């Protein structure tokens, strides 16, 4: 009796999933101690590449990983599987991948905030550095925008400066870029603000829509559908320059405040990869960037391409980390955390 039930179930599952997943898993991922080691020489890649993402499925980081992975088959001739290993803003996943074999089959998608901001709020043992990683290339820039409730009398930054009352503002969680941008802006402008922290961008955005708080800083991609529908108003961008998607919205920098905060993402692998592997990945990635699908994806998600080399990523992120640390220090901002 046991047999009949188990075998029937197994057959059903494997037949169905096998049938359906044929395209998704033409080749299986390899485990931690799997058969990764026997790649000897110039043949790369010969098997599926695993791309680890330190964030939950469905979020913007995950979507970017999936967009890159989508191009893998066409460029390298092997599938790339996206594996979500959420935890500690990607710290766990990044550290784990950094300790894997640098054979080119283990990649990780990095969030700049993990290096530039999270490091300010977590104890030293949790800090992730770029030292153990080879960065393949930068991918894109995800910008932050200050929004206000549609019925709010606040339309511009000047309105906020002249409001002459306490403004409730939402933040998106300890150690996020959006929180940093918001707090630095409040500190630099001297606006009388009352911080209400939320867990992430989506609840903060919801709170603005429902006028639970008056303003908040969230990702452009998240806010865009609401801006288009008129449920929230865009006030200020935190990017260096204005962005194509919202050409009329001024940036904090042009308003005279030194708050250049964006989220950057890059593709990396454990340090010590053979040159030909790194080259293959770099070249292939450029090909993916050039595909129409990938460009369309960036556009759909309001991402600005920032396709720079691994070296440039390392420089930029190191500079940003210093800059942020300086800003936080200068304004005596408490991002939270044990430090």
């Amino acid at each position: 009796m046991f047999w009949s039930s188990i075998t029937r179930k197994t057959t059903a599952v494997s037949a169905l999933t096998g049938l359906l997943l044929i395209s998704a898993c033409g080749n299986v991922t390899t485990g931690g101690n799997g058969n990764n080691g026997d790649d000897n020489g110039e043949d790369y890649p010969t098997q599926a590449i695993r791309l680890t993402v330190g964030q939950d499925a469905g979020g913007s980081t995950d979507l970017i990983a999936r967009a890159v992975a989508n191009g893998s088959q066409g460029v390298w001739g092997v599938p790339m599987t996206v594996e979500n290993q959420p935890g500690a803003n990607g710290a766990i996943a990044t550290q784990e991948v950094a300790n894997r074999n640098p054979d080119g089959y283990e990649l990780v998608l990095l969030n700049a905030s993990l290096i530039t901001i999270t490091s300010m709020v977590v104890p030293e043992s949790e800090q992730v550095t770029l030292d153990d990683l080879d960065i393949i290339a930068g991918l894109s820039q995800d910008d932050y925008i200050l929004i206000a409730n549609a019925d709010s009398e606040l339309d511009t930054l000047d309105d906020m400066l002249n409001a002459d009352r306490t403004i409730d503002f939402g933040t998106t969680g300890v150690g996020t870029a959006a929180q940093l941008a918001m707090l630095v802006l409040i500190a630099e402008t001297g606006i009388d603000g009352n911080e209400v922290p939320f867990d992430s961008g989506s609840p903060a955005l919801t709170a603005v829509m429902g006028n639970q708080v008056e303003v908040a800083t969230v990702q452009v991609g998240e806010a865009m559908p609401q801006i288009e529908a008129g449920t929230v108003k865009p006030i200020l961008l935190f990017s260096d320059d204005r962005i194509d998607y919202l050409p009329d919205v001024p940036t904090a920098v042009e308003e005279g405040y030194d708050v250049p905060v964006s989220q950057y993402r890059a593709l990396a692998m454990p340090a010590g990869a053979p040159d030909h592997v790194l080259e293959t990945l770099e070249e292939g990635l450029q090909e993916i960037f050039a595909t129409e699908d990938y460009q369309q994806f960036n556009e759909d998600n309001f991402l600005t391409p920032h396709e720079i080399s691994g070296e440039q990523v390392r420089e930029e992120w190191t500079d940003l980390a210093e800059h942020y640390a300086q800003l936080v220090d200068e304004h005596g901002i408490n991002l939270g955390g044990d430090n």
Partner: protein
Amino acid sequence: MSRTREKTEDVLSQLTDESGSSTEQNDALLTTADYVPERAGTVTNFVCGAVVSLLGIGALLVAWDLGFGSLTQPRAGTWPGILSALLILLGALIMLQAKSFNDAERLTFNAAAVGVGAVSLAVAVQLMPHIGFEIPAVLLTVFWMSVLGKEKYLLSIPLSVAAVAGFYLIFVTGLNVPLPRLF
């Protein structure tokens, strides 16, 4: 199924060999009265209360370290502080009323099997990242079926291998779950 029978079996099996037929025979000889010793007494309940209170004290120390704050200006330790205090209080009440409970069971030698089971599971899971999940999984199921469960090896070994193979097909081949694996 009668409650009586099972519980008497429990008592009996501590005395006799683990033979199904013998318990069947002795079934009629025992009454519910024999079941009573299995319930834990005041001491066990008192210890339960003490453990709860101690947990509360431990948690309270951590909360204190985080800062109690106040109800209108809460800090990281406010809420855990409240919960810790509640645990201490509840533990104390259980200690005071230890006599009135009859819902705890006596910890007997039989519980050793639970310890062995839990440890074997933990060991198998610890091994999986290092040598792949297949071998620890097969060993674990064989151990549970035949050592803890007295199934014949002739049955447990093929069954375990088949089950692990089935799960391999479902999780690894079908769902692409990145379980560490040998094959």
